[in-house]
């Protein structure tokens, strides 16, 4: 336990000091940390899920407070909470069904194969039913729900049948099972987060066509993989990279793109409007996607979105599912932004004579926001690891990933 606590403290410290940057890296670290929290959490016999949820929530609150601007942390914590709730639900229903069955079959070991099939089916049905009571069925759950929920009870009951000799043993195994299943689910989440680039990049070929001109701003690994995936499929196209002042991460992206053999042009951020008429599509990576379909991205993105709208150029946002945030943006310019040091804009020494000498004259003020907010009406398409979506559909997608209970932590 102290081991986990020190890990949490260390990660909180990193988040606080802004030592860790980028939503994917943060998301990954968070989910790995939560996995060890879950695996070290001792679970009581009664109400195991609640204990796990409380533990995760406690850690999650610390993490979110450490850097409220990094929304990925909150997203991942909520995802993990959602996983716990889902597993708990499917397990209890499976157990109820399984107990009935055990009474009927009277310790019949040979009946195992039958035992797997029946409770699994019933669990899936009950789980699906329970889920549909939690929230109205969405397109996603209708299409993908059945196979997904079928796999979960299968793994759980396979662990169960070997130890289902007596009821007490069954109870302890249930405890372990829940934890085991949750960790399994968290592992899937880790895979999902680390695999989201490939998932998104796979769709590149459908969106980028021959001889197109693509504009991007700032640097995003998702965008890089996306463009390169199209390139690998023998599409030839040109990329304009807006440099993304003041951090100039666009320069790094341009370097990478050229190294991978793409035709790349670097432009200043202020040239975006001038260039937009030649551009066929704007592709950017998001920092976070809000529940209303609004996007938080690197500073300057709103300007590019407005330019794209003016010239009716599709504005496409790439976002892994860990970037989908169940919150609505209230006052996004201030509350969800971070003002960084002005030294990124100008040299302190050079301007030190303008910075209040105590002479009482006005002093120079510098504002250096990190993020920009793009309202949903400027976004044409979201590409996530599950496919392309309309901004107005985002809230449904988000409802799939999070439980309503966890929105406020």
């Amino acid at each position, binding site marked *: 336990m102290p081991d986990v606590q*020190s890990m949490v*403290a*260390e990660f909180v*410290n990193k988040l*606080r*000091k*802004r*030592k860790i940057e980028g939503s994917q890296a943060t998301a990954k670290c968070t989910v790995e940390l939560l996995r060890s929290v879950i695996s070290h959490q001792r679970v009581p016999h009664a109400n195991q899920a609640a204990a796990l949820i409380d533990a995760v929530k406690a850690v999650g609150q610390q993490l979110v*407070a*450490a850097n409220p601007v990094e929304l990925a942390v909150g997203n991942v914590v909520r995802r993990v909470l959602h996983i716990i709730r889902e597993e708990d639900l499917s397990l209890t229903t499976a157990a109820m069904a399984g107990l009935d069955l055990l009474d009927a079959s009277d310790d019949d070991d040979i009946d195992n194969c039958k035992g797997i099939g029946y409770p699994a089916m019933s669990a899936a049905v009950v789980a699906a039913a329970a889920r549909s009571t939690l929230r109205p069925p969405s397109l996603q759950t209708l299409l993908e729900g059945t196979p997904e929920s079928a796999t979960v009870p299968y793994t759980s009951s396979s662990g169960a049948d070997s130890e289902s000799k007596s009821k007490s043993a069954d109870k302890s195994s249930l405890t372990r099972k829940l934890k085991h299943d949750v960790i399994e689910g968290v592992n899937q989440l880790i895979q999902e987060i680390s695999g989201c680039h490939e998932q998104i990049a796979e769709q590149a070929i459908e969106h980028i066509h021959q001889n197109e001109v693509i504009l991007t701003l700032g640097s995003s690994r998702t965008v890089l993989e996306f463009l390169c995936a199209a390139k690998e499929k023998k599409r030839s196209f040109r990329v304009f990279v807006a440099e993304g002042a003041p951090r100039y991460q666009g320069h790094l992206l341009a370097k990478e793109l050229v190294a991978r053999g793409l035709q790349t042009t670097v432009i200043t951020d202020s040239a975006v409007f001038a260039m937009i008429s030649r551009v066929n599509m704007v592709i950017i990576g998001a920092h976070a996607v809000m529940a209303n379909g609004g996007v938080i991205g690197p500073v300057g993105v709103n300007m590019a979105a407005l330019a794209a709208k003016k010239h009716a150029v599709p504005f496409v946002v790439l976002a892994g599912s860990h970037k989908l945030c169940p919150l609505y943006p209230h006052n996004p310019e*201030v509350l969800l932004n971070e*003002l*960084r*040091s*002005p*030294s*990124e804009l100008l*040299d*302190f*020494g*050079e301007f*030190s*004579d303008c*910075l*209040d*000498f*105590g*002479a*009482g004259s006005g*002093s120079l*003020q*510098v*504002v*250096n926001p990190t993020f920009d907010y793009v309202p949903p009406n400027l976004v044409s398409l979201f590409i996530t690891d599950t496919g392309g979506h309309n901004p107005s559909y985002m809230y449904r997608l988000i409802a799939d990933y999070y439980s309503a209970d966890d929105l406020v932590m």
Partner: protein
Amino acid sequence: MGAQKKGGGGARVSEDAEEQSHQRLQAILLADSFATKFRPVTLERPKVLLPIVNVPMIDYTLAWLEYAGIEEVFVFCCAHSIQIIEYLEKSEWYSHPNLVVRTIESHKSISAGDALRYMYEQQTETSQIQGDFVLVSGDTVSNMPLADLIQEHRERKKKDEKAIMTMVIKQSKSSSLTHQSRLGTDQLFIAVDPLTKQLLHYEEDKIDHPRGSVCLDKSLLESNPSVLVCNDMQDCYIDICSPEVLSLFEDNFDYQHLRRHFVKGVLVDDIMGYKIFTHEIHSSYAARIDNFRSYDTVSKDIIQRWTFPYVPDINFSGNRPLKLGRQGIYRACDVIQSRSADVGASSVIGYGTKIGDGDKILNSVIGNGCSIGSNVVIEGSYIWNNVTIEDGCEIRNAIVSDGVKIRAGAVLQPGVVLSFNVVVGRDFVVPAYSKVSLLQQPTTEDSDEELEYADSSSRTADHLSGLNLQMESKASELGPDGAGYIWEVCEGAHDEEWKHSVAPIPEDKLAEITQAIDDDDTDDESVVPTSGELKSDADSINTDMNDPNDDYYDFEKEVEGTVLRAVEENIKVDLVTLEINGLRLSYNMESADCAGATFYSMMKLAVDTPHNSASELYKNAASIITKWKELLGFYVKKIDEQIEVIMKFEEMCQESPKELGPLFTQILHLLYDKDVLQEDAILRWAEEKAGADEADKVYLKQCETFIQWLKEASEEEDEDDEDEEEDD
């Protein structure tokens, strides 16, 4: 190899090797400024615990050190050490996973030098400092990365044993009017070798110093192909030091101030040959809070986020983060603010603070738990915690410490500092630049600012015990219902009070300075050179030469005393040489000056010895010269130095023509015989003198025959040489 390894032994060796390659990054943090600039506030609380934008200064320093990868910090506590240790124990620093904080207590230290000497003594017992360390004071606010810099220092040290320190500097233009940096310190002149970044000269411009002129040693220009002289640099007081620094402090017990004594001492001292290097930082921030003006400036820089991530809306040290709103207003979530109150740009308002109707707050920092009445104006001020301000007060550019009460209608004029728990009476106007405390001003005010208030901790206790009585009887200095003493400003400092205060420099002062500069410009038409330019005017050099002459006179006196004592007590030549060397270093003299002074004192001794005739005097002189020629010989190794001796002698003869005058040739001959002087020196002197006025040639003429003889001798020798060559 494998056969020889025996389990643990081999492992230990490899561990040691690893340890050597990865030294723990250590830092010494001086939690005491060893200055009195923050009085009277520092009488009751150590400076490092004073809040800057509602967080104690030491937290900024520790958070930065931790962020920069320092693993172990030694916090050196002196004044109010108990408070500092208590604070650290309560804070999260003691239990920090990545940073080990250790406190070292010493009440005797009255300067940074003492502190480091104490560290050195501890060092011999515990050897805590294992390698290079970072030396900072606890009032540093910075976000610069250190790991690379330490690496750079280590590599330089590996190449050059003598590179013992790397000093961090940052460009910051100083005001052209007041010659004062943004931080309120004096303008800094440094000379750096642009290639190696070695520090060659360091000078803090004193106000009375002739403005804009800087005096460089000529030898600097000789030994370095290029020298960069800057006046737009700010010393960040962040040093990467090698362990030698500690031992240097131990060896030189008179080093007190890190810059004035240590850095200058190392630069002047060419015996050990230690070098100091500089490192300029560009994008990151570093500043030290040295006085009230820098308190103001650094606060503003923090609010303007130059110190990111050490800004009020980020929880960097266990502080409760504030919410940042538009226009750079930081506000705690539970602030109770009246609708009619106007909180302007760049303000900070802490937890649990109440702001009444019609208040105007601009450019100010207000701490936790304050209550502010209605129609109060607060501008450019720093209000700490739990302050009560009643209705209708006006506070401009002031610092108000914890627990102060300001009664209705009171006015604080610019530059006021109120120490803890002071009460300002109803409608009382606190005059500008006054410092108010519940404690009386120490009567034995040390004019020397180096002296720290270390001893005053006990005094403070005395004061506090007798405080209640004093308050009853004599507390009307701040109005009938007020409590506190207005400190008197010491005479000399009165003019400079405005320079170091939180208040902006008043218009009339600025106008005065501008006027003064304009006048000066019409007088000598010289303009203050900007950075990188060297002033080549002859007059500036001449004016600078005056000082060395005075110095030389003192030096001569000292040497004379030393030699006299040496003769009387019959001290060994070696020891006398050592002593004179010491004098030479402290007066920054050339070896030729030593030769002149030594010879002067020897001759003076001879003259002063009772004698009746010229021949007796000659005998005296001869015996002294014979006896002490080794001493003289030590300094007259070069021709130049020998010429200096002859000139000095000539000068003396001119001063006392009756006694020494007739003996000039004889003594010169004697010196030649005793190998103190070489013939080249005498001949060169003769050549130089040949062109002089008739009056100056008296002694040249006197020894004409001797010189003639010398010339012939040397010619003969030359001929001999030639003959020999021909023979070959």
